[in-house]
């Protein structure tokens, strides 16, 4: 099995298409080490959340003043506070540490809240040595007066602002909920994105019937979720020239292969590693290679996009939006 699995993602040469996506597995140094050992091609570190940093900062500032200077016997209630959790310094040191631990590219991830925060932290991340930056962007529009155009413009402004600030490759991870994803994706590219990551899995709150409370319910993905990125990668591969990566629902070698066939340059995995352990990377790689070898593929590049919308025998299949029967043509092209 000597198929060539190398791929180009965001201008980075990856030894295979498997990228560990941002999550608990890329948080711990020992797991990073293991990932590297089992052959992962790149790692995306967990996001630096501007909101979280701000929240912690604010909480700590509040805590220092909590009950302070109001009672003569207790001018405060806590020893001097030291907190590095979520702080940019902490994150940057994690980037640097990851760079030391793994030999493969390290992609940092950033979730900003303010424009200033995006730009500031992006610059710091680049300085810390990240090979690329994945912007984890989402705004949940809840205001009926805010138009979709305004929301999209916010994304574009942000990507442009970060692009102006950093020189490392930039990926943008977005959600699927846009009226015209191809148009939006194109504009993201124009704004400076080197690649797009499909899709952000939004937290979907649940309701607890016992407590009548809204419950945050984080679930791991399964292979069924793959279909959404699969479709859009197949469509966009045909019309856009930028790196595309899939995330969500990649659990088996077959999942990876499908995405590559649709046109993904890289495939991000997380849930399956949490369920089955980091060693599963090896099985995925072996499965891919085996499948390719059995079918005499020589390289990943050869296979990449071979079933994108433009290249597939039935392009309309990617466009079908409802469960109507496939349209059957009764007449072919007359020559």
């Amino acid at each position, binding site marked *: 099995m000597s198929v060539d699995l190398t791929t180009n993602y965001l201008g980075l040469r990856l030894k295979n298409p498997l990228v560990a996506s941002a999550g608990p597995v890329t948080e711990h140094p020992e797991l990073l080490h293991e990932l590297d050992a089992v052959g992962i091609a790149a790692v995306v570190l967990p996001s630096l959340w501007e909101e979280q*940093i701000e929240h912690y900062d604010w909480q700590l500032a509040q805590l220092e003043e909590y009950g302070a200077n109001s*009672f003569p016997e207790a001018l405060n209630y806590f020893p*001097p506070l030291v907190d590095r959790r979520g702080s940019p310094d902490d994150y940057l040191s994690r980037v640097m540490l990851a760079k030391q631990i793994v030999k493969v590219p390290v992609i940092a991830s950033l979730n900003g809240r303010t424009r200033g925060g995006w730009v500031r932290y992006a610059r710091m991340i680049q300085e810390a040595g990240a090979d690329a930056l994945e912007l984890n962007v989402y705004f949940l529009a809840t205001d009926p007066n805010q138009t979709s155009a305004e929301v999209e413009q916010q994304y574009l402004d942000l990507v442009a602002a970060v692009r102006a600030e950093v020189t490392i490759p930039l990926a943008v991870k977005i959600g699927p909920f846009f009226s015209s994803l191809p148009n939006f994706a194109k504009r993201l590219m124009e704004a400076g994105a080197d690649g797009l990551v499909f899709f952000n899995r939004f937290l979907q709150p649940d309701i607890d019937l016992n407590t009548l409370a809204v419950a945050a319910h984080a679930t791991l993905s399964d292979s069924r979720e793959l279909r959404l990125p699969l479709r859009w990668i197949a469509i966009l591969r045909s019309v856009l020239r930028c790196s595309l990566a899939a995330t969500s629902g990649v659990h088996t070698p077959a999942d990876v292969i499908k995405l590559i066939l649709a046109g993904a340059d890289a495939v991000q995995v997380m849930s399956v590693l949490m369920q089955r352990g980091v060693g599963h990377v090896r099985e995925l790689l072996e499965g891919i290679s085996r499948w390719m070898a059995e079918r005499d593929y020589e390289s990943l590049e050869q296979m990449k996009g071979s079933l994108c919308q433009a290249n597939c025998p039935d392009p309309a299949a990617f466009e079908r939006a409802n469960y109507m029967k496939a349209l059957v043509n009764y007449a072919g092209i007359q020559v």
Partner: protein
Amino acid sequence: MMSRSFATLDGNEAAALVAHQLNEVIAIYPITPASPMGEFADAWSQAGRRNIFGDVPQVIEMQSEAGAAGVCHGSLQGGALTTTFTASQGLLLMIPNMYKIAGELTATVFHIACRAVATHALSIFGDHSDAMACRQTGWAMLFGSSVQEAHDFAAIAQAATLQSRVPFLHCLDGFRTSHEVNKIELLSADDLRSFIDPALIRAHRERGLNPDRPVLRGTAQNPDVFFQAREACNPYYEAVPGIVREVMQKFAALTGRRYRLFEYYGAPDAERVIVLMGSGLGAVQEAVDFLTAKGERVGVLAVKLFRPFDVSTFLEALPRTVRRIAVLDRCKEPGALGEPLFLDVMAALAEHWPGEIPRVIGGRYGLSSKEFTPSMVAAIYRELAKEQPKKRFTVGIIDDVSGLSLDWDPDEIPEPADVCRAVFYGLGSDGTVGANKNSVKIIGENTPLFAQGYFVYDSKKSGAMTVSHLRFGPRPIRSTYLIRRASFVACHQFHFLDRLDVLELAEPGATFLLNSPYPASEVWDRLPVEIQQTIIDKRLKFYVVDGYRVAAEAGLEGRFNTIMQTCFFALSGVLPREEAVRQIKEAIKKTYGKRGQAVLEKNFAAVDRALEALQEVSVPGNATSKRRRVPIISGPAPDFVEKVTAVMMAGKGDLLPVSALPVDGTFPTGTARFEKRSIATEIPIWDADLCIQCGLCAFICPHAAIRTKAYPAEALNNGKPDSFVSRPWRGSEFPGHHMTVQVLPDDCTGCRLCVEICPARSKEVVKHKAINMEPKDPHLARERANAEFFLKLPELDRRAVKLETVKGTQLLEPLFEASGACAGCGETPYLKLMTQLFGDRMLVTNATGCSSIYGGNLPTTPWSPNAEGRGPAWSNSLFEDNAEFGLGLRMALDHLEERARQFVKRYATLLGDSLTSALLAPMGSSEAAVRERRQQVAELKRRLRDVPEAEAQTLVAIADHLVRRSVWIVGGDGWAYDIGFGGLDHVLSTGRDVNIVVLDTEVYSNTGGQASKATPRAAVAKFAAGGKAIGKKDLGMIAMAYGNVYVAQVALGANPLQTVKAFQEAESYHGPSLLICYSHCIAHGIDMSKAVDHQKDAVATGYWPLFRYDPRHAHSGERPFRLDSGKPTKKFRDYAMKEARFGMLAGANPAQADRLLELAQADIEARWRYYEQLAGLERQAPGTLEVVA
């Protein structure tokens, strides 16, 4: 001499800075006002800060000051440089060791923030009664007068003790020096290195115990040699003054700051001289300046080295011209000829003064931080000038009983005109003090000006008012008294205007800055007329800024302190405006820099917007407002409350004469109800249609500010306000009754606990409950009227109430109400429940701590009587002895009960058989039994009323003891687990009928969150800044080991009914009972409104298992230990990470946090397995008092 660095800090930090650098072992225990010294030392060692020898001093917290002294003694004997910090009762606990340390000629310095010793009352404030109680121990005593001296004398004492081998007490005045922020010149590590002789340290070490050259120390001696041996130390004491003088000279050569054993200040030819020590010196010096400028021949002699008292130096320091001397002591020694310093001066003069001895009078001043001002000093000099001055006097009070006090004119000596004097009124929670400390730092450390800050707090833990007194001037500021005439007054809370004369201290022409929700154009009409008139009369320059709005715009919701600070700088002119803004931003960067860019930017924005929002108000010529200041007490109140309590509540307690106050510290209860503080902005409003009448809202309320009552429906016919809401009572026990859930809007602190615990929700809008927080103002008048009506509704017959239910208990009148505890306090609901169940027959002994402060700190008390005049009788003895104190009370009651029983037997014929046997039968613990016994006692009194025999009347006098009294011993974990544990253990061992309530917050809450042995593993607390490595002591199991002690662990927010049962079982058990009560606390770092969730999680994780051990079940075949909570369903981490006390460690040191949290989880699991096994075990406790029927 090299240029020196200045710092602005308080006396505690100043002293601790030196102590930490010069010591190797530091044993500490928290006590006000010395706690910060220990906290600084601990924090510095935690941060790896080194002493001048290059080591990080070891800091250890002990279980008491006695323990700390023991550690010091041992460590000194081991040859380490060792110190401690303490005050007041803490110092008294060290005395036995101090005799030993001195007797063994051991070099050490203890740093004391001098504080009043508790007598008729506890006081946390400053005087010399603690230090003076040690003057006989053989320690040298060095008294500083200022923050600078607190710093310098710490070093001087250390050098002198090493040289002399006599241990030193380094005394700084509590609060006035320990808490005053002032600009001082710092000693560098190099200074200290060159100041301390290494050879002396070597000698100290060589005196330590060492098996390589063994010695015996601490022998027992007999009449043959003890006396001689005691005298053998004399040469060492004789040498001390010379050594201190020499050390002071060396210090002067090093720093340029000259000190003497006795420092004279004033006219060289003075005829009248005051002698004193401590911080009062500043006030006296100002008076001397003022009077000598007018040509008066006066002076002051400050004693720095009080022990050993060096007579010759003292005499040399006094001008030969002196004819009259007033010696001032900051303590009281009842029954003595005079106070200690006075007697020393008298003896010195009598023995050694050449020629005619000056006339000496002795005075007391400044007890418990009583103000001591230059004008009072002027009165003393005036008294000295009289032909026949009072031989003994007091100053600073009005003594209309003994006539000892001197009259003074408060305005006789004005404050220096070139000093900016600014007073700020704020709430404890609004950051006013923090910002002012910051301002003092800005001026003190960045400009050539001198700065001083002193902060006055009230005794409440919620809605507490703070008054900041700031001085800025061109010379060092030695005004050791509060500002009396302010050139700048700021009021940071608009509503203060309604209750307080905030302009009282404003001098004519002063600037007044008000945080006002109304713009300059509208504010005038919103002011009470009294404020308007004062502004006009004093021609004040009046400015407003809407701090809340500006803060909100800057993203600093509610935090307006930097805004007010900026406006202060802009208006006061202490610094040029632009310079001030720059400096404030620098200071913000320093304070918040580590807190991230966003916090910084918000504060910067606040500063910039503040100046734009600052508006001058054009003051009309007339006061036209219809609003008047609210009277302190509205409605009728008992005479004592009107005449005394109300004066204290108004902040005018200084004006009360001696005759107004009880001679023995005894005060009426039930006074908090008159203190309508009205501090909530939102209050709970009842939605009766949703209510399921569970009573949980009232159950959880820390302030008895929300209550439930059931009453006959016809009671509503009598003057019910239209707005009063009621619903039929759902229970079957009170047919024809209605019920109401009523908020007392002026007592509510707005903590939200009632809303959070309410289980009844609207079907249509889930967030809407049967009780909901709403803005207070629109509801205030209506709810006041409702509350007034509610309180007058009749109380139920207690016998009919279902006390086995939570809602039943909440129909009983709480006799603990409206305390000044923190909003959302986790302790007070237990106390309130206790009074609902047993308050009318209860005596409470209360260990010092939070509960003694919100329970017994004047002006008012929440402990209250019922309509019959019965209620908890309460007393606080000490921190350490509370269990013993309660046991003593029990013994007295038992004795009197038994005596009454004997007399009943004696008068059996007269009383009749049935009454006699009824009275002699054991009394049950039910409400019916109590009522019945009271009726029997009343009958006894009736039958014996006219019997002339003395013994019959003796019985009448003690017959009430036949109604069994319920003794409750209450305190926190600091008491029960640490300082009072020995006593608690002993009391448990006696088998006597006492009920012990441990309000377990798992830290020393009252002194600011220091770790106790109740602090759990992995929690961060002061003195456990790296996370507590050792698990919590299992007090319940220790008590259970006795077998005959009733023990329960409860969490009232997690399982209300279990708590109710435990309290009832504890009370009904006629042996010792111990209730360990989970008490959430602000020191946990939680959102207090969510405290019930925290309690539930504490139980659900198994962190706080609920159990009851009832010895009445400790018989063959029975299992007395009952585990009331289920198997843990959550992980400890899920609970811990919601509390800053645990979360802080995860942020600071994730690896350590992971390790400790894992261990904590293992603790929980191991304990659970153990408890589970216990719950299945039969156990017998032979001799247990009662067998359950």
